[in-house]
């Protein structure tokens, strides 16, 4: 089978590019990963009326081609065919309302000499705002075909497909003339010649575009993360930049300004504004939603709805899934003869699938809300309103929704960090987010407080349990924000930390697009993170079940005999200073599957059937449990120490799996696991040791 030729779709963020891509291709999109980075490569076949087929590839949304990171480099490499097949044509999606900004990317792409089709999107909005664009003149001045589209309504799509077919027949040309300072032209020509000599690119148009890109992108200090650039060209580029700087010239400014001069000339010639348009709807909505008082209230209300939804609306669906998993396990036990294979299927495979599917309601709901907020335009306002607070700990305004979702569950929350543009900002958010006290920690808190405090125990006028619960949530938020501030100043210094945020006009989200995007996210989770969670569940099951005790009488005996049980014993010297014995150690190991599993694992250790957080026999067993020397195990101080440990420890393999997927390497999830474990151990150690010295240990 021959590989179909590639047609790229480029455009600014918020230009409606993805919606247009979906309108062009239906829902046959294939999502893969670009090698070495964590950017989705979305592609789909596009069939012409004459039967020709192209592979349409959706480039990441960007304002320009310049790059500092490998992720940003994807666009220029795809356009110039570096490391991949060169495209036949490029569709550039232009937000007709903001054409005065969007044409900058068009000019950069035209400079590659590739045939271009401009999709003048949201042309209905532009018309409503009193903006008239002269299509024929725009075609004349850019040399591109121009098609008016309204992607959300499917308008102009058929015509766009025809234009793509025509463009793909055109051979790439030499780069069009762009008026630039003479000194800059000489710089670019010198580098272009060096590129052609080096043989990296053979088409002069492509070489010139790449020369401009190198001048704009390479970091003088060599701190950029760009790949595939021969050292000789890197040295040449930096020498040219240095020469220009010595002559008092600013190459970046010269390149960008000359492109914008061209943009302004085109806009002057093709765009007409109606004399006076009444105050726009967006402006009127914003005067409420970003108002000092009303804006704050609206913000709090929207966030409460999102939080409420994640916390309680997902509950019935989660219970339903858990019940079906139990049913399936029961059916498997009934249908199969008892033995190791049945155990593997029941406690490994079915439980593992359950562990994966159980996240779907929260992921679906979170991405539904994020989609609603993003497509309506409010998500950018969330960042606008809260950025001041987030920045004080080094986080981006866009980190707020993921952090808030962390109180519900870290897995969807980590996935939600994709709305943050810069990789540094995104990594920072996903590394501290698992400190937010998720709902899976709640059963642990409930069990512990109910065990160590009598029902009526009070601290002042409040119930001791409630005070402790509040303290744990506060600790988790403080820990997450402090960790962010520390990591930002140490491991994640680098670039990022800027805002430069577009506030798009408010729009009604299109339901079809919304549902499609939610499904994409859920599917991506099931396929990549899901398989890893399933595998880890099976490994953990094996740890808890093997080797088999020779004459096992109860589950408890078996667990004590298993690898995990022995591991619990082995780590007892390490965790005893925190107030934990080997039984709690086994519980902590079991909790790696999901924190609430701590409760059922303890149930097995204490030989208590069907233990849950509100199960009285388990509490009673814990209350009477003692150390070998007769001291009580679960004192209030041990309880607090245990809760603090659970707040801070990364005791969740699903979080690790999803951070692995979203960061693209094992390095960051391992780092996260290490720092959180150290933090948890240290904090519990301090709590227990200081508490014991003060005589609270009894």
């Amino acid at each position, binding site marked *: 089978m021959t590989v179909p030729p590639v047609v790229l779709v480029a455009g600014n963020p918020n230009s409606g590019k993805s919606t247009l891509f979906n309108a062009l291709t239906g829902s046959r999109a294939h999502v893969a990963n670009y090698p070495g980075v964590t950017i989705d490569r979305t592609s789909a076949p596009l069939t012409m009326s004459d039967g020709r087929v192209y592979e349409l590839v959706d480039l990441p949304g960007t*304002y*320009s081609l*310049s790059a*500092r990171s490998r992720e940003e480099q994807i666009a220029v490499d795809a356009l110039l065919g570096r490391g991949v097949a060169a495209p036949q044509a490029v569709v550039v999606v232009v*937000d007709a*309302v*903001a*054409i*005065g*900004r969007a044409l*900058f990317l068009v000019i950069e792409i035209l400079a590659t000499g590739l045939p271009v089709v401009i999709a003048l999107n949201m042309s209905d909005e532009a018309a409503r705002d009193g*903006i008239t664009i002269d299509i024929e003149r725009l075609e004349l001045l850019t040399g591109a075909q121009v098609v008016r589209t309204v992607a959300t309504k499917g308008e102009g799509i058929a015509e766009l497909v025809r234009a793509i077919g025509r463009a793909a027949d055109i051979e790439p040309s030499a780069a069009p003339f762009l008026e630039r300072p003479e000194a800059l032209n000489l710089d670019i020509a010198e580098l272009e010649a060096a590129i052609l000599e080096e043989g990296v690119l053979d088409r002069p148009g492509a070489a010139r575009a790449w020369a401009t890109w190198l001048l*704009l992108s390479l*970091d*003088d200090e060599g701190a950029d993360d760009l790949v595939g650039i021969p050292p000789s060209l890197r040295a040449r580029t930096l020498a040219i930049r240095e020469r220009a700087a010595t002559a008092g010239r600013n190459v*970046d*400014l010269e390149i*960008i*300004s000359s492109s*914008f001069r061209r943009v302004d000339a085109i806009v002057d010639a093709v765009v007409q504004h109606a004399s006076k348009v009444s105050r726009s709807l*967006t402006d009127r909505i*914003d005067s409420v939603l*970003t*108002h*000092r*008082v009303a*804006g*704050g209230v609206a913000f709090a209300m929207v966030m409460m709805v999102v939080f409420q939804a994640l916390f309680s609306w997902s509950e019935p669906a989660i219970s339903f899934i858990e019940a079906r998993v139990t049913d399936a396990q029961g059916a498997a036990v009934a249908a199969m003869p008892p033995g190791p294979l049945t155990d593997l299927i029941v406690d490994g495979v079915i439980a593992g699938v359950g562990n994966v599917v159980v996240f779907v309601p929260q992921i679906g709901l979170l991405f539904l809300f994020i989609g609603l907020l993003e497509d309506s335009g409010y998500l*950018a306002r969330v*960042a*606008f*309103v809260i*950025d*001041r*607070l987030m*920045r004080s700990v080094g986080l981006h*305004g866009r980190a707020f929704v993921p952090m808030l979702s962390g109180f519900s569950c870290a897995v969807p929350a980590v996935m939600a960090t994709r709305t943050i543009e810069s990789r540094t900002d995104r990594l920072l958010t996903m590394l501290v987010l698992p400190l937010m006290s998720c709902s899976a920690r709640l059963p642990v808190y409930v069990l512990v407080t109910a065990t160590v405090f009598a029902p009526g125990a009070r601290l002042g006028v409040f119930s001791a349990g409630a005070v402790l619960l509040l303290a744990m949530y506060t600790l988790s938020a403080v820990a997450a924000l402090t960790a962010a501030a520390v990591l930002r100043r140490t491991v994640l210094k680098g*670039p990022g930390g*800027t*805002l*430069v*945020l*577009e*506030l*798009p*006009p408010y729009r009604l989200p299109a339901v079809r697009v919304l549902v499609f995007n939610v499904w994409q996210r859920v599917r991506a989770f099931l396929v990549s993170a899901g398989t890893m969670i399933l595998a880890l569940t099976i490994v953990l099951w094996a740890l808890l079940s093997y080797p088999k005790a020779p004459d096992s009488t109860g589950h408890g005996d078996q667990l004590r005999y298993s690898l995990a049980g022995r591991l619990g014993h082995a780590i007892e010297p390490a965790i005893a200073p925190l107030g934990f014995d080997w039984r709690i150690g086994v519980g902590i190991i079991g909790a790696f599957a999901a924190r609430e599993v701590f409760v059922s694992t303890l149930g097995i250790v204490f030989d208590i059937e069907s233990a849950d957080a509100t199960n009285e026999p388990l509490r009673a067993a814990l209350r009477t449990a003692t150390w070998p020397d007769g001291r009580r195990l679960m004192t209030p101080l041990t309880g607090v120490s245990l809760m603090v440990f659970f707040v801070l420890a990364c005791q969740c393999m699903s979080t690790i799996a999803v951070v692995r997927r979203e960061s693209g390497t094992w390095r960051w999830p391992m780092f996260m696991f290490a720092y959180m474990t150290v933090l948890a151990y240290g904090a519990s150690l301090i709590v227990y040791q200081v508490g014991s010295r003060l005589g609270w240990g009894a």
Partner: protein
Amino acid sequence: MSRHSGSLAGLPLGGTAIVSRVRGERAVVRRLLEVGLVPGTVVTLRRIAPLGDPIELKVRNFALSIRRSEALGIDVE
């Protein structure tokens, strides 16, 4: 057009001025230039976030939000 000369951060609410120079860390400056804040561009301070920062600009017919620290590096006249 109000006569204001100095940093964009000092522009009064609703005030309009023309960008004359963008200073700061190279990556930040490049980003600001690429979204259209090149010298000669007309910019209006449209709104200030409830907590006093960031600010919302109108530039090239779209709404752009930047932090005050970034606006300090943009000279206008």
